[in-house]
């Protein structure tokens, strides 16, 4: 057997093994994130596993303790099913009710203990509408009188 052929066969085997291993790893680790519905459908599957959940912050659920730097809120997709999230850390600037977020952490019983809180932002870029701003100011000025 020529040396060249040996290299070719050996190389193919090595690359094959690397690809097989990486696909296996990728399937386990790179699920980008789950949704609350998927977690709530089979909660036992996600016990004691580090995972990411992407959803919207439920309106009216945000409790921010500025002294203790503790943040708690519910994440939801449809407003019906939600998961309470606890996060020890500062509140990101763009964190708002109704905003898309991705939390990373572990499920602890019913609630989710987040170690990282990321904020998704939309692809919309808008500036303040001067007309509506003027109108707002106008109404404010009436109120005060």
């Amino acid at each position, binding site marked *: 057997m020529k040396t060249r052929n040996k290299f070719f066969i050996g190389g193919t085997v090595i690359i094959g093994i690397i690809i097989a291993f990486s696909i296996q790893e990728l399937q386990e680790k*790179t699920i*980008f*994130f789950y949704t609350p519905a998927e977690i709530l459908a089979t909660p036992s599957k996600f016990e004691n596993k580090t995972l*990411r959940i*992407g959803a919207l912050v439920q309106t009216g659920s945000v409790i921010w303790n500025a002294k203790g730097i503790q943040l708690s809120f519910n994440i939801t997709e449809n407003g019906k099913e939600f998961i309470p999230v606890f996060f020890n850390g500062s509140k*990101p*600037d*763009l964190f708002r009710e109704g905003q898309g977020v*991705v939390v990373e952490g572990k499920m602890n019983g019913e609630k989710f203990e987040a170690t*990282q*809180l*990321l*904020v*998704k*932002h*939309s*692809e*919309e*870029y*808008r*500036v*303040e509408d001067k007309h509506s701003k003027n109108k707002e100011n106008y109404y404010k000025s009436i109120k005060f009188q």
Partner: protein
Amino acid sequence: MKKLVLFLEWGSISGLLVCGLWIFLLTPLEINQGFPQKIMYLHVPSVISTYLAFFVVFVYSIIYLWKRELIFDQIAKSSAEVGLVFCSLVLVTGAIWGRPTWGTYWVWWDVRLVSTLLLFLIFVGYFLLRKAINDKDKEARLAAVLGIIGCLDIPIIHKSIEWAKGRTLHQPTTFLKVENEQINPSISDVLINPLTFSIIFMLSLYTYLLLLRYQNTKYEEKINELISKTLN
């Protein structure tokens, strides 16, 4: 040629400076993000310049493999060099923009971030490959193949957000957003106008750098010829 290079140099640099003044002094703040949104005017033009630079690599690599003349390889190489600079600018500005908005410089599970890093690494490998080979024709041939393969990552970067179906951190496209089968950018006119001009001037900066680099490779050749003559 020299006049064109000089024109592009001064045109693009002064144009970008004027855009900078326009962006910081005359453009209002975006409602949701505020000041951090301004880095978009550097990030997006760099992205488009990166795409163009590597597309030029793709085209000239194919032409080289077809015609086998070293001039096409030199154009591809020059464009790859400039493209790599713009690509690193994309990664750096993206990370800086990500910190105040997303809350992180980098995540390993975002499709667009990782595919862009892959593009960067492929073209770092492209130059390592070039350095490793002494024979000019062999270098050009192998580099052309790697250049073509590397450029196939660009459509992946562009389409990755759609393929991830929203399960990723980077937001979908703003400028090519399709609503009711029509392209309808979701950005206010006062924000998009300086961006359009930044893109135009960044692309002319790319063209200037490409021509400059291409001229330099010619000088390099001349110097190498002189050196080999004197040594012999």
